[in-house]
């Protein structure tokens, strides 16, 4: 009797602790990925009757920062939020996210199950501020049908920049020798809107260069490795294998329409490509140069500082749940974002997923080569400067050296101002 009473008591305390906690969850998961997230949230709500998570799309990653900043200004912030891993610092700088270190230390298995390089992206000054959720690698997407038509082996994507250039030449088709190509071999498009400059960093890294020095106090793109990478990128446009006058978005559209044969894209879109492209999609590791590197990008889920204890407990429950082995695999299969747990990588299910969707596998193999992007509180502004610099080069307004010299100077001014704060 006593035992039962005790059980009832503890149960009621536990359920009281979660008594109908409503959690507002802001995210930037849009378009074709949204149904998968909605499904996960619905499953969570069904299996956790005491917690109700309401997920709300608030625009792309950059827009989310704006939304959250204004909401925090008037104490109208949500309880949990999915942020780009590169934007965490903007909020931790002002103590606006909950330090999760205590929760994590209570659960040692959890920490060791997260993939190391992913985990590092959420640790700032030795404190844990989020759990990695939708992590992606930049991959080379290519059109196998076009490879076949050009007489190339569709199962042998380029492994080096040189091979890529050679293949791209073969994949560029002109109706007459002097006309504009009707099909381009390559589009190394760089996004200027959301998380700008994303696709350019791996070029610098593969050329054994850096964007910033190790302590993030100076921009170093004016050094030869970065400038040479820029020269190479420009070269691809100059020799006519890449379309010069397309925005990043238009480039993706042209790729979908089969007018471009290859290009770097986030692994997060793989499943969409498999389901929707009317031609055979190939996904491969980015071609190497002096080194083999790809960009680690994506988002993590964090808690907003100032929410009640009950909400924090419920939020932690949700964050752990949505990143657990089963759910991270579901998320992976339905989007192409990488599983965040080691246990998922070693599971039997993942092998079944690869059987169904072989294009999802290369991104897993790229994980050891993936490097997170350098971050800083003013990163959005800094990236716009770097993006403008490479655009100037693309349109032959500046030489690579000159453009990166100017950009370095401007970025360093921002970094210097930050130090004074």
């Amino acid at each position: 009797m006593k035992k039962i009473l005790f059980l009832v008591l503890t149960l009621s305390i536990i359920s009281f602790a979660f008594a109908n906690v409503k959690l507002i969850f802001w995210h930037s998961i849009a378009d074709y990925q949204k149904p998968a997230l909605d499904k996960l949230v619905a499953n969570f709500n069904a299996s956790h009757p005491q917690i109700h998570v309401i997920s709300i799309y608030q625009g792309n990653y950059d827009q989310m920062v704006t939304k959250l900043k204004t909401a925090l200004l008037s104490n109208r912030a949500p309880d949990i939020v999915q942020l780009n891993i590169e934007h965490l610092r903007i909020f931790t700088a002002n103590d606006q996210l909950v330090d999760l270190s205590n929760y994590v230390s209570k659960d040692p298995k959890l920490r060791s199950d997260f993939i190391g390089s992913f985990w590092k992206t959420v640790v700032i000054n030795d404190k844990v501020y989020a759990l990695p959720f939708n992590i992606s690698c930049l991959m080379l997407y290519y059109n196998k049908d076009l490879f076949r038509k050009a007489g190339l082996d569709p199962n042998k994507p380029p492994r080096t920049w040189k091979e890529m250039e050679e293949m791209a030449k073969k994949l560029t088709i002109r109706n007459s020798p002097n006309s504009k190509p009707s099909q381009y071999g390559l589009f190394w498009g760089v996004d200027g809107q959301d998380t700008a400059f994303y696709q350019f960093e791996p070029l610098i890294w593969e050329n054994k260069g850096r964007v910033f020095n190790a302590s993030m106090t100076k921009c170093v793109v004016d050094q030869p490795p970065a400038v040479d990478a820029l020269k190479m990128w420009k070269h691809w446009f100059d020799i006519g294998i890449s379309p010069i006058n397309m925005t990043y978005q238009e480039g993706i559209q042209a790729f979908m329409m089969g007018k471009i044969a290859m290009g770097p894209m986030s692994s997060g879109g793989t499943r969409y490509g498999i389901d929707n492209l009317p031609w055979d999609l190939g996904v491969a590791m980015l071609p190497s140069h002096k080194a083999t590197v790809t960009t680690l990008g994506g988002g993590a889920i964090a808690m907003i500082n100032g929410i009640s204890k009950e909400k924090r407990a419920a939020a932690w429950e949700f964050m752990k749940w949505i990143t657990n082995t089963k759910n991270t695999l579901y998320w992976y299969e339905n989007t192409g974002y990488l599983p965040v747990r080691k246990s998922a990588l070693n599971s039997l299910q993942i092998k079944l997923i690869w059987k169904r969707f072989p294009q999802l596998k290369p991104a897993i193999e790229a994980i050891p080569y993936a490097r997170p992007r350098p971050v800083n509180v003013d990163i959005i502004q800094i990236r716009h400067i770097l993006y403008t610099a490479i655009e100037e080069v693309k349109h032959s307004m500046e030489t690579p050296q000159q453009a990166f010299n100017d950009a370095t100077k401007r970025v360093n001014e921002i970094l210097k101002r930050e130090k004074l704060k």
Partner: protein
Amino acid sequence: MNSKLKKTIKGYFFISPSATVMIVFIFFPLLYAFFMSFHQWDMSSQAIFVGFQNYVLALTSTQFWNSMFYTLYYVLGVLPFSLFFGLFFAILLRDGTMRGVGIYRMIYFMPVVTSPIAAAMGFNWIFQSQMGIANHIIEKFGGQDVSWLTNPTGILQMFFNNFNISLPTILQGPSLALVVIILLGIWQNVGYSTVVYLAGLQSISSTYYEAAALDGASEWKSFWNITLPLLSPSTFFLMIMFTISSFQVFGPIQIMTPSGGPLNTTSVVVFYLYRQAFSYYNMGYAMAVAFLLMGMILLATIFQFKFLERRVYE
């Protein structure tokens, strides 16, 4: 109570609802913004007083001046064409007995009531490089497809490229992307100026023309000597309205070129300040830029009142 005081109280009573709203939601925020323009503030940490630093930074920044030029291009592109086509169509529609006048008037006014966001989505779709119908039509007629939204070269420079002449940056003209946005502006304005000019035309008494005809003046001459001067109040009114609205263009730019266009060539002042405020969180700086823009608009309006109102025929 004396009657003067009574009248004053009455007057203030009538304007009090408007005045209250304006004080709370415009004048107080304006003061606050002015105060913030002397601070460095990122919306999260404590604001730091920096004196005139934001204004100095803006006035010495190339980006700021570039954005001023792009704004000027926009205003100078939209204003004259909106007036010209408005007048042109108004004259064609002047004869109220002509068949279909009502329908034409209705059609021409439709873009005016369309939301800038929706209109920009439509234009964006038309001027897509791959799937846009504009390029398709050009190719049909044997032309090369045009990179409407991605080529940063100014249109004047494009023309002079044929002669291998390179113009200084300021004189290169707006990029095609900005031209498309200017087209959108004209498209949305023409209907309004047509209707205003029509109203103006209808108020011109026919006796003027009869007198001119008796004097043997040609139609062209009576247009220059009668119509145009008598329409000057309408022109003046439209100029003021379009100047104020054109200086503040933003929505279509945000929708059509979310990253500020090729090499920031569509980054007009409001876009620039919006980005400083809501992407970079340089709040104080953005507000300083906004006050500089306000000064520009004020100067332009005062200029128009000083130099053009005198020429308005009363």
